[in-house]
Structure formats: structure tokens, C-alpha cells
């Protein structure tokens, strides 16, 4: 078993964090994982993506040519990575920003208004966690609580504990919608 997940979007949408929390959660549940970020001279803005591989044996390639799951937080990400999604794979699409998806392959499309849901929760920056909740549901490898624990650890390390509650809610909303 080896599953590749790509998170992609604008810089500042919490793309790298969502991937890291997923990797951390999978590791805590005994899986082998890799997390590979795109890295560039831009610190903010621009585009960002990261690839998480979850497997039951040591991961070979941390780059994934055919991801099973793509989280496309914006239009350009869908255009760039959509065609690469494995047949039967899943695209979790931020329908708050992409109204009419142009890319269609053999992948299933799961549109979720990530930004709108995060806005409802009062924290638009939690859109990434809505997406992550959906990813955990689609993966079906471990309970959502694993992701919530990994998130708590990550926010704790950054001294952002006060954001934990709203992000936890975001996880649950995404999980429920997938």
C-alpha cells in the first residue's frame, strides 16, 4: 500500500501545514510517511504545494507522479495537478474559488466550499483544515482524532493553541462533507 496525496494552492493558504499535519497523524498511527514541499525564493504569495506519501513499507520515491488524492485550493492547482491524478483517484476542490472546474480526467471530483465553511467558522485561514478533514475521510486509514492530535501538537509547537478549537471544528466539517 502506498498512497500519494498532493496539497496545492496559493502561498498563505496553509498548504504545507495541512500536509505536515497529515504526515504527522499517519506517522503516529504507525504508517511510513514522507512530506515533500515545493520550495522557492518566495516566502509569501506565489504558489505552494506539498506531497505526502503514506505507505505500509518504507517510502521510496517522495515524488508522486500519480496522486490518489489532490487537494486543489485554487484554480491553477487544479489545472496543474488535476490531469495527473490516478484513475479512480479523488480531487478535493475548493469550490469557493473554482466555480466551473475545467479539468476532467478519470478522477472523481469532490467540490467543497472550503473558504465559505472556514468563513462560517469565523477563521478563513482554517480552509486548509476543512480540506484535511475531507482527506482523512477519503483515505479511511485512521480516525479523524489522529489528525486533531497532530494538529494540536503542531499548533502547540508554534504557540498558536488558541486557534486549535476553530481548526478542530474545521476538520470535522470537512470530514462530514466528504
Amino acid at each position, binding site marked *: 500500500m502506498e498512497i500519494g496525496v498532493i496539497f496545492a494552492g496559493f502561498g498563505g493558504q496553509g498548504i504545507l501545514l495541512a500536509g*505536515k499535519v497529515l*504526515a*504527522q497523524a499517519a*506517522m503516529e498511527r504507525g504508517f*511510513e*510517511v*514522507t*512530506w*515533500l*514541499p515545493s*520550495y*522557492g*525564493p518566495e516566502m509569501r504569495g506565489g504558489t505552494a504545494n506539498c506531497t505526502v506519501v503514506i505507505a505500509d513499507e*518504507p*517510502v*521510496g*520515491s*517522495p*515524488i508522486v*507522479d*500519480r496522486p490518489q488524492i489532490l487537494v486543489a485550493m485554487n484554480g491553477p492547482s487544479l489545472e496543474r495537478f488535476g490531469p495527473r491524478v490516478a484513475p479512480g483517484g479523488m480531487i478535493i476542490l475548493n469550490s469557493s474559488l473554482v466555480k466551473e472546474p475545467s479539468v476532467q480526467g478519470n478522477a472523481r471530483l469532490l467540490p467543497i466550499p472550503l473558504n465559505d465553511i472556514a468563513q462560517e467558522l469565523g477563521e478563513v485561514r482554517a480552509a486548509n483544515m476543512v480540506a484535511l478533514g475531507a482527506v482523512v475521510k477519503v483515505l479511511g486509514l485512521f480516525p479523524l482524532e489522529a489528525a486533531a492530535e497532530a494538529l494540536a501538537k503542531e499548533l502547540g509547537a508554534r504557540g498558536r493553541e488558541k486557534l486549535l478549537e476553530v481548526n478542530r471544528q474545521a476538520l470535522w466539517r470537512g470530514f462530514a462533507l466528504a
Partner: protein
Amino acid sequence: MKVLLRGNEAMAEAAIRAGCRCYFCYPITPQGELVEYMARHLPRHGGVFLQAESEVAAINMVYGAAAAGVRTMTSSSSPGISLKMEGISYLAGARLPAVIVNVMRAGPGLGNIAPAQGDYFQATKGGGHGDYRLIVLAPSTVQEAAELVMLAFDLSDRYRVPAMILADGMLGQMMEPVELPEPIPPGRIPPKPWALTGAKDRAPNVVSSFDLDPYRFREILRALWAVYREIERNEVRWEEYATEDAELVLVAYGTMGRICRTVVRRARKEGLRVGLFRPISLWPFPYAPLRRLAERVPVLLTVELSAGQMWEDVRLAVEGRAKTPFYGELGGVVPTPEEILSEVKKHVRG
């Protein structure tokens, strides 16, 4: 307990656990996290973190700290390593132990910050001036990166030869679970009677790579090369994966090595008898084991993130015993397992 760490962070933590107490650096992408980690953590362990004015200064500070008998390290990425090459030659000439981490990026020139393996020649064949070698270790996972940093300190001290970790941007940036090695107790670091500690109750120690007399200098270098021969006998490291029945073996190191592991798995699923030979020590290079492999495997396909540098060592090892095709990418482009697999299929039939 496993922790999720970037390659850069794991190498920094491993250095601290290996007893590194002086770290000198100059910022460059993609090894920034190593610098940041050292800045945060090394002083807490009573160590010295110093951001130098240049790579040239940083490596010469390493020279000073190593001369004083302390475990010391610097890290950089390709263009910065070029600048350090002068100092590395002096370290080698003065028989000073030190660890240099190169998180390679694409070159020549400013190139870009994407992962590449174009510094193989520089690391294994010299790089700086003069007749010397570095111990060069190439990790392919974050776990291995941590372990090889620890090993690099030990080997460097044991042989008084500088050691280089040859990683790349992908390994530096990616996160993986790591079981961190136990810290080395200070008592286990061997004493260094040659170090500059003040000439009290003994004759003065001199750390130098200088001797104007060619005959005397020849003897110094003969002794140095005797040590290199000993390293070649004792410290060759490599990994073989699924080579027993292979008709084609991929030869790849570092990041390419792990990507090729995926290629082997996929090839095997399709019924292709493909294996992997992964050099871990690039110097000393595993010539003999590769030669043995070439006796029974008809094709050794070298895969590198370069135009073919390690490939030359592969051909030196094989000496015509097997076919030695090459597949490489340039400029920071990393080939996918699929692309490599289609290259494999040109040479082997199911």
C-alpha cells in the same frame, strides 16, 4: 520514539548528538533549516553557533576549531561549497577532522535551488587543489542522513580526514519519521594529542599543510595516502535491493537511490527482474561489490541527477563486464519513477 523531521533538521540534531560543539555557516538555500536549527539548539548544548561573513570565513573557522580539538561542522549548498573548497583542501592537508554537509542544488553557476547531484566529482575527486580525498557519505532517507552525520564525525576523528555528507535539496527539505541516534557521551570522543591546547608540559603542536621540501612533503603525503588506502579497505558502504535474480540493476545514490527503489518495486510488479545497487560511501566507492555484481548481471543502469558523474566510477568498477547505460536529468529536474521505468524497459524484457 520517532519524530517527524526535515532532512536538514535531522542532520543538525544528529551533529549535536555526535558532540559537534562548533558550527560555522553562511546562509544558502536549500539548507536554511539546518542553519536555523543550529542557531536555536547548539548554544543550549554549550556549543558555538557563528554566522560568518562568507563561506570562505566559515570553513576557516572550522579549520581553527578543528585545530583546537573540538568536533566541528559547517553546511552549505553547491555554490557555497565551491567557496569552501580552498579551506577543505587545507583541512585535508593539515589532517584536521571536520564534517561538511553539502545539500546539493543545480549548477553550474547560480543555477537554481532544485535538487541535483552535479557535485559528485567535486566531492569525490578533489574539488580543492592538491592530492587528497574526502570521506563522502550519501544518505537517501532522513533517518540515514542522521545516522551518517554521526558516522561522519566518528570516521573523521578516527582517520583525521574531513568527511562530507553529500545530500541534495530534496533530502534536505523533505520530512520523514526519524528515530534519532543516542547522543555520544563526551568520553567516547577520542583524545586528540595533536590539537592546539597550549604547549604546557609538552613540545609545541603545529597544525599545518606546509612543507617546502618536496621529499619531506612526499613522505607526509605517502602517510596520508596510506590512511586513504586503509579507509578504502574498511569503510566501503553500499546497499543492494532485489539484486539476487536481477537482469538489470539500477545504480543510484542519495535521493535518486530511493526513487529507484520505487522503480524496482513497480518493475517487479510487472514481472521485470530489476534490482538496485546504492552506494552509500561515494568515497571510498564500492568498486569491488559492484564488480562482483557485474559478473552476473548483464545491465547496470546508472541513474543520476547529473549528466553522468558517478557513472564514470561505475564504468571503472565494471570494466566492460556488463553493459553500463546511463539515464540522467539536468538542471534540478527530478525524473519520476514512471520515467525511469520506461528507460528500464528499453534494456530489459519481462
